[in-house]
């Protein structure tokens, strides 16, 4: 649609830093280096490495301030630091969504055991998984279907999404808390 413009203009570090900082602040989602280049720096000739250096410089600059620049799964975003949670949270407590154990357990199973079918989730939890739970998780964009399991009935397989990681401020599934070790059953 938009004709690909040639990246021809040079940009100095100071201007680049201002622009990247502004872009990260106004974007309504985390921005990756690719997105920054595509959406905000299309006119400039600038390497990924340089953008990464600029991001590191911005991160350093915001250390100890009111917001910090964090890397999450889909990119970088400015958010308030942990240390301020208590002071800020009271205003938003009522708005913060709470999730039932059923939802959290289903989500945990999908996150840790993906890809997984609804039947497998029910098997481990020992109770039926309501459609409402799957709907809520899908609507929040935390889970997605990734295919079908080749067993009778070809049940849908679920996996977690990048947005799920973003929501919990994680960059990858590795960062999820480790599962507790299971004691070995000896006979």
């Amino acid at each position, binding site marked *: 649609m938009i004709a690909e413009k040639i990246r021809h203009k040079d940009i100095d570090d100071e201007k680049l830093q201002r622009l990247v900082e502004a872009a990260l602040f106004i974007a309504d989602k985390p921005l990756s280096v690719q997105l920054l280049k595509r959406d905000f720096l299309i006119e400039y000739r600038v390497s990924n490495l340089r953008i990464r250096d600029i991001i590191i410089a911005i991160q350093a600059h915001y250390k100890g301030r009111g917001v910090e620049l964090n890397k999450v799964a889909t990119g970088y975003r400015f958010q308030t630091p942990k240390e301020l949670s208590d002071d*800020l949270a009271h205003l938003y407590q009522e708005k913060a969504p709470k999730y039932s154990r059923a939802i959290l*357990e289903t989500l*945990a199973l999908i996150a840790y055991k993906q890809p997984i079918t609804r039947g497998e989730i029910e098997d481990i*939890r020992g*109770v039926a998984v309501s459609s409402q739970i799957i709907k809520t998780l899908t609507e929040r964009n935390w889970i997605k279907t990734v295919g079908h399991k080749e067993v009778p009935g070809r049940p849908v397989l679920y996996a977690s999404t990048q947005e799920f990681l973003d*929501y919990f*401020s994680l960059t990858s599934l590795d960062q999820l*808390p480790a599962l507790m070790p299971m004691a070995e059953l000896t006979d």
Partner: protein
Amino acid sequence: MSDPKAKLSTTSTQSKSPTSGVMLQQVLPFALLRGEAMVEKPQDLFIPPDALEVILEMFEGPLDLLLYLIRKQKFDILDLPISPITTQYMTYVDLMKDIKLELAAEYLVMAAILAEIKSRLLLPKQAVDEEEGDPRAELVRKLQEYEVIKKAAENLDELPRIDRDSFIANVDLADNFVAPVINSQVDLAELVTALQGIIKRTQAFEHHHIQKESLSTRERMAKILATLKDAQSTNSYCDFSDLFSIKEGRQGVVVTFLAILELIKESLIECVQAKVYGEIHVCLPKQ
């Protein structure tokens, strides 16, 4: 199994169950509810009576309830004492039924499983097939597996969350910001289609001579008008001869001449000759 109506409330508890009236006044409702008939009572049920319903509702299913019983009684999950666990489990299930909590079928299936394990454990050792091993093994594995996920869900709940523990910065654009508009695209065929649409719709159009040949004249007419407009804005005028360009050749001269004639015919321009045989000035009509 959760029933949204069955929430923690004194009145609902009272109205729901004939036994709960008793429970409300007692410190140890569980024991009184079951009376002397109860052989074993849960050690941990020092619960305000009106909270009982909510607590029972809190279990995510039979595995969750079993785990709760095991942990509270500090039983060894790997050496599960089936008999006392089964008794306690049944006590809770009966209690859920008593206060008319919507009981998921899974609870009854688990009751059957427990009873079956219990009966197999009572069989003489030799009668048990060596291959089968410990009849509790499958249940223990399930309990462990569930406990891992239960803990994982708790950990997940404690991770910093957006809008609860951390808030995303949002900044407005400058006041002078204007979103650029990408013009929509048109191709020549659309333009022609549009005109053909008009032709089809209106007879009147047929009286207008629109043909390829006349377009160069029409274009020239527009050009001449533009030139004269420029001249007018600088309070000067054009000489008739200025409108012609030798470079365009004979064809060009003819087109220009036709354009001027057409413009004069339509009273779009005026030609003024200041003196006989003098230069003809061309200008837009005076207001």
